[in-house]
């Protein structure tokens, strides 16, 4: 079962494109981003099934991964 990767509005606006991707498990979030052509450094926060993770987190089957960018800086 693939995992889903959703982009928060701030990230989506920044890079354009889709807001949801089905991704294969077994790779880190960082590698997954590179494979999708998204610059990893644009992603400020990775949340997996509601918990904050780093980009080194290895995506598991069925994971719901949410990615946020920071566009405001407070």
């Amino acid at each position, binding site marked *: 079962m693939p995992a889903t990767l959703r982009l*928060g509005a701030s990230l989506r606006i920044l890079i354009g494109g889709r807001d949801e991707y089905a991704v294969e498990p077994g790779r880190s979030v960082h590698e997954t981003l590179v494979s999708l052509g998204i610059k990893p450094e644009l992603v400020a926060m990775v949340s997996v099934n509601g918990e904050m993770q780093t980009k080194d987190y290895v995506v598991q089957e069925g994971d719901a991964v949410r990615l946020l960018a920071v*566009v*405001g*800086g407070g």
Partner: protein
Amino acid sequence: MNGYGGSILRVNLTKGEVTKEPTPADVARDFIGGRGFGIYFLFKEVPKGADPLGPKNKLIISSGPISGMLVPGGGKCDWTTKAPLTGGYASASMGGHFTAEMRYAGLDSIILEGISPKPVYLFIDDNKIELRDASDLWGKGTFAVEKQFKEKLGEEFQVAVIGPGGENLVPYACINHDYGRQAGRGGVGAVMGSKKVKAIVVHGAKSIPVADKDAYRKAGMALYKACKDAEGFKDWTRYGTTIVVSWCDEVGALPTRNFSAGSFEGGKNIYGPVMREKIVITDKACFGCPSPCGKYSRNKKYNSFVEGPEYETIGMMGSNLGIDDIEAVAQANLLCDELGVDSISTGNVIGWAMECYEKGIFTKADTDGLDLKFGNVEATFALIEKIARREGFGALLAEGVKRAAQKVGKGSEKFAIHVKGMEQSAYATHNATAMLLAYMTCDVGAHHNRAWAITYDLQVGRDKVVPEKVARVIWLQNFRPMFDVLGGCRLQWVELGIDRDLYVPALEAITGIHRTWEDLDKVGERIWNLTRLYWARENEGFGRAWDMPSPRFYEEAPTSGATKGQITKLEDVNKLLDMYYEQRGWTSDGLPKPETIEALGLKAVIG
């Protein structure tokens, strides 16, 4: 007038008189409210050359048409004055619940004028408005005073109060409210202190007329729904601005040891999740906010409670001072709030002092015996206290980093991190050219809230110096501060990414005036140019030199972290300014051209 309380309250402190006048319709049309009102009244009413701490300066507190309304984040008000820190324009935004009560008392602006012969507080209970004796409150900390008022008057009264920092005219003193919200930057607290006003307490009982009630409800609900539905809603609410700390560390934007680097080896100990786990006990929101960024903390190590710390304070009191202990940062935050000094400027100036100490410019003989090594928590606490009270070595630091460095000399000016005399806030900008430009040209000095562009730098290429980056900064500078004009919070747009067009029907339903974002951006541009003209009017020789950043960002590359070896070249700094001035319609020395002034309808305003 739909969408407005309808009155401007003038408080003549010298005479002890309060008077109301109708909110001028033409000013509401052209400047809308909030910081628009602030700069309009400042420019028109405070005479050229006024001493920021003298009787001729004014402190102008303004709400906007969405303040106190059911629009997400409608709890912001603007505090404008001539800045004691910079000698130019100051406008500080404050969240919480003050602005809502002010509006319910029918007040769009409160203008404090003159100087009271003795300490007073301004009491507003709807139509009952008085200046009352505050001699017994003078000298007290902000929390004690707020608590005292709440107990005496009731929770419905909102309190804005200065601490010893404001009383002692520290030029970066802030105003505290709601036990942890501030009008923070530029020294608005010192201006209030100079006027001998300890506090303003306000409660209102009126409603605000709206043009179309049904449309207002509908538009308001659409905005709330958009916030709740936003992808980042849960995470943002959980961590607030602390969400940024780890990312800033990763990309080299986390100020470290007086901005000498942008990544901190102890960073992991001050990241958002660590703070959430260690000290946060609940979330805290401003009026009408669905996405509370405020984090309320129980600090067991110091047996204290504090709202925060948020990102800026973690950056300035944590990594910038080499402190990797979130509880110590929270305690420093508490001290700044209680004593009424801006935690950004305070962290910046202490960072500079620590670097002076490291370089041997200061010894213990200068620092009242304090061992000012980076990372020294106790010395940091002691210095905050000394600054707010202007005691011993603290009196020098209480001048602000620019003046302190000018006094000390010995090359310390080179690592005094400021623009126009305002200490830079918590983003290191060694190799982030759009963000550097945002700081250089910000209308209050080196503050991040007008335009923030680091992610954009990363997307476009951090060292690229191209017209698109400049255009982005200008667009942000015109548009983002419009939230401070409307009296609302920008974070729902900024961080949750809700569609800004959703504000258009809400604003129309409230005021009865249809304004697109194109129209609003134009108002933002008008205000931006007026603030620039204010700087030029108040400072002889004002121009390009005032926009230069600290040499640290074009002379000294960090030796560690994500931006190791990276720097912005001086020629690129100048190129950025050339492009910026051209795109703004300003001269090559950074002054609005006559045709720009004319096109923005500012000729009549500046006279």
